[in-house]
């Protein structure tokens, strides 16, 4: 192919194909290199943003839960009368409030010494001393009612025969006792499972989750909290220790994770959303996969389309080139079908016109050449063989010297007629009668020269006599037979028979002898032999007939070595020919 390219340059088909493929390739490459990463990046950011939104929504849910719980606690504290020790009407209200909220496991109010004024969960197993040591109690008193304290999850142990896993909310409440203002503490235990369900049920991807840290980075809630306590799971808390809010990344068990951190307002706890990159970016992976498929399919379609388009564009040109190649090989009978683009059709039309013109010119040239050849052959044939003339004249002299005037006169008369018919006023076509007369005169002259060397029988069907024939076609044949007879007949006399007949639309002459015949290997080449070698007379006759009447006519030679030769001339009857 390279050699072909170097020699002829690339084909138009190849150029169009390569051009289209290059264009498509550049387009697809641009899409895969620039567009796909861009969209992929957008999807990635979008996925992380969605995950962040989910975490923030979860934080909002927890915030609402905490707000609701705080409202309940505030309401509970508002139920405490000025003198809670003497006015016990609030007991039933507190009891009712606790029962109305299933997440509340206990509501209790303690005086400043830790003594319980009322608790919804029955008797306490811990006295005032024990209560005063509890963190929820001491912290509530320290903050003096301005803030609510949140404990870590733990098992509440202050009630008899009752253990609940809770988060304790406590708040200082002022009241009057013995005419003096006192500060007590309201306790509200919230069932931990209610709180943890808010975070445990958050799903980030297939295996993402959320967990909650307190302000000291201790785990408050985690879907695998017990497994972490049991040492069967781990959480990389260090990754979020230095960050209050926002987004960070880490790697755990070989999987990259995005950590979204948000603060739960009232508690100052932080919720951390953990999402696995490979999961949240599934849409991005799906997009890349789909884009890869689309690009691959597009590449196939582009290849097919480019091939088809290159073929469609170049097909008329290829067709044109094919026809031109035929013309180049010599076939001028080609006609181009005008199809394809207008430019190609115009080229086809012009080419067809050009071919028509070439054919006309070629025909003209061929005709002219044939005429020229015919004139040459006629001229050649019209020339009297000098040897024949010399020998004839020599014979006439010899006869006169021997006193054989009568024979000399016959010979001179025959020679004169021979010349007259040969000339025929310059005509190349004469009547069969003249042609027969011409050969008869020739035979007379040669008979007188060669005496008993041959005898000749000339017969013409009467209907042939008025037919027209190319002149001087029989004499060369008889001369040829006679020459071979005299040269090769080993002294024996030969018989030459000349016939003129009509066969259908054809006029036929036969010249037959019983001489030595022609060898088969020589026979085929006699009429085809180039000019200048033997058989000139036969080829001259054949050529003149064919130039005059066409290639379907002319001479045929049948011969058998030792048996004689039959030469047949075929030409059309009644054919009008130019003189």
């Amino acid at each position, binding site marked *: 192919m390279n050699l072909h390219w170097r020699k002829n340059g690339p084909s138009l088909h190849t150029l169009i194909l390569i051009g289209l493929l290059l264009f498509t390739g550049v387009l697809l490459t641009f899409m895969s290199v620039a567009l796909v990463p861009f969209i992929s990046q957008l999807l990635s950011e979008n996925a992380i943003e969605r995950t962040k939104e989910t975490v923030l929504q979860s934080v909002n849910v927890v915030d609402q839960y905490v707000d609701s719980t705080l409202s309940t606690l505030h309401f509970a504290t508002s139920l405490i009368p000025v003198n809670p020790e003497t006015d016990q009407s609030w007991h039933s209200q507190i009891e009712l409030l606790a029962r109305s909220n299933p997440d509340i496991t206990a509501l209790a109010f303690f005086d400043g010494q830790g003594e319980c004024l009322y608790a919804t969960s029955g008797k306490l197993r811990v006295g005032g001393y024990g209560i005063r040591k509890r963190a929820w109690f001491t912290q509530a008193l320290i903050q003096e009612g301005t803030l609510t304290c949140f404990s870590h*999850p733990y098992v509440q142990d202050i009630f008899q025969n009752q253990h609940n896993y809770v988060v304790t909310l406590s708040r200082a409440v002022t009241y009057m006792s013995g005419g003096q203002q006192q500060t007590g503490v309201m306790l509200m235990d919230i069932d931990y499972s209610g709180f943890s369900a808010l975070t445990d049920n958050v799903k980030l991807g297939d295996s993402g989750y959320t967990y909650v840290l307190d302000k000291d980075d201790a785990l408050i809630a985690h879907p695998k909290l017990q497994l972490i306590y049991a040492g069967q799971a781990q959480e990389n808390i260090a990754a979020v220790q230095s960050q209050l809010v926002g987004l960070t990344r880490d790697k755990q068990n070989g999987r990259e994770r995005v950590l979204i951190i948000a603060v739960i307002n009232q508690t100052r706890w932080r919720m951390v959303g953990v999402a696995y990159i490979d999961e949240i970016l599934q849409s991005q992976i799906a997009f890349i996969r789909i884009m890869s498929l689309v690009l691959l399919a597009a590449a196939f379609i582009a290849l097919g389309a480019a091939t088809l388009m290159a073929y469609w564009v170049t097909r008329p040109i290829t067709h044109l080139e094919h026809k031109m190649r035929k013309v180049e090989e010599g076939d001028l009978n080609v006609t181009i079908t005008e199809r394809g683009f207008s430019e190609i059709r115009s080229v086809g039309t012009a080419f067809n016109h050009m071919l028509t013109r070439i054919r006309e010119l070629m025909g003209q040239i061929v005709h002219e050449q044939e005429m020229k050849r015919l004139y040459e052959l006629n001229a050649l044939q019209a020339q009297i063989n000098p040897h024949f003339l010399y020998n004839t004249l020599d014979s006439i002299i010899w006869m006169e010297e021997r006193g054989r005037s009568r024979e000399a006169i016959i010979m001179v008369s025959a020679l004169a007629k021979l010349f007259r018919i040969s000339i025929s006023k310059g005509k190349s076509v004469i009547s069969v009668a003249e042609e027969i007369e011409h050969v008869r005169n020739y035979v007379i002259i040669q008979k007188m020269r060669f005496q008993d060397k041959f005898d000749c029988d000339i017969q013409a069907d009467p209907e042939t006599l008025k037919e027209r024939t190319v002149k001087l076609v029989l004499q060369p044949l008889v001369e040829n037979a006679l020459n071979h007879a005299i040269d090769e007949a080993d002294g024996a006399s030969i018989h030459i028979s000349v016939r003129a007949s009509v066969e259908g639309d054809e006029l036929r002459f036969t010249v037959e002898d019983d001489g030595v015949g022609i060898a088969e290997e020589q026979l085929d080449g006699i009429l085809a032999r180039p000019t200048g070698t033997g058989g000139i007379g036969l080829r001259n006759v054949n050529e003149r007939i064919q130039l005059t009447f066409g290639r379907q006519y002319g001479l045929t030679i049948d011969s058998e070595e030792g048996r004689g030769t039959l030469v047949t001339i075929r030409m059309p009857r009644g054919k009008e020919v130019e003189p």
Partner: protein
Amino acid sequence: MKRPVIISVLCLIASLAVMFFGFRGSQAKTPAKTKTITLLTQEDTGSFLLQLRYGAEAAAAEVGDKLSISTLNRDDPATQIAALQADGIAAILLYGSDDALTRQVKAVCKELRLPLTLLDREEVGSACVATDETLAGTLAVQRVQTLGVTDVVFLTDNSLMAAKRLRGATDALEGSLADVEIWDGWTNATALPEKVQKLTARGACVIALTGDATLAALRLQANGLLNAANAIIGMDPGSDRVSLVENGQVSALILPAPYTMGYRGYRLAETMLHGGKAESVTVEPKLITLTNLYSPENVKVAFPLLQ
């Protein structure tokens, strides 16, 4: 047909094939088939079983599988297990104390080529998850040392479990100056042996190496044979564990961790299903005192019925 047309048609077919098989491939990405492992139990109830279940469920949730629970048919375990296998059960976790029944289940599972993991039971050559009994003894001794007591009385029996715990304890005591007495005649005892009496009079700590021994120690305490100075460190005392610690009847309890056991058991079964070998896994017991009784870390152990 002309060659370019053939090429174009082939390209079109190729692109359609790419799209068809590509999209079908992505849609065919169904999640991995969920398998089910059954927790087969000889006991119907109990907090220990509950925590075993929770632990196994946590492990199942981690890998996206399911855990089912069935009570073992004591009369015909073979038919039951064959039916479970026919239902598509991938492996079995067995929890039970009946040795004969366990042997039957092992034989059936072996015949059916069903992976079996024994929970709370240690058997050589079997996949099993059990409490590290040696460590239980060690933890008890550590508690004794925390209390600053030098003399120890071990209440033990002739069980293999007690022997392991005793070995762990004595190993931990090795090199110390403790005066030790091992007593196994505590059943229905109304008086203390001389050596035990001598040691308890000196404020020795009592380590009860089994659940029954713990109850016996408590009985001795109630009968006045042990005094307040004799701290009792018990093991597997039953359902009153929290009150024993809260009321100060025992100084500490060594409790098994069924939640972790269930989790590790399921993971072991999972490992075997993936071609891993059957191994023996031990789970650390927990030392529960009044100090750490209510901490979140011990909730599953000390308060197994709490959600």
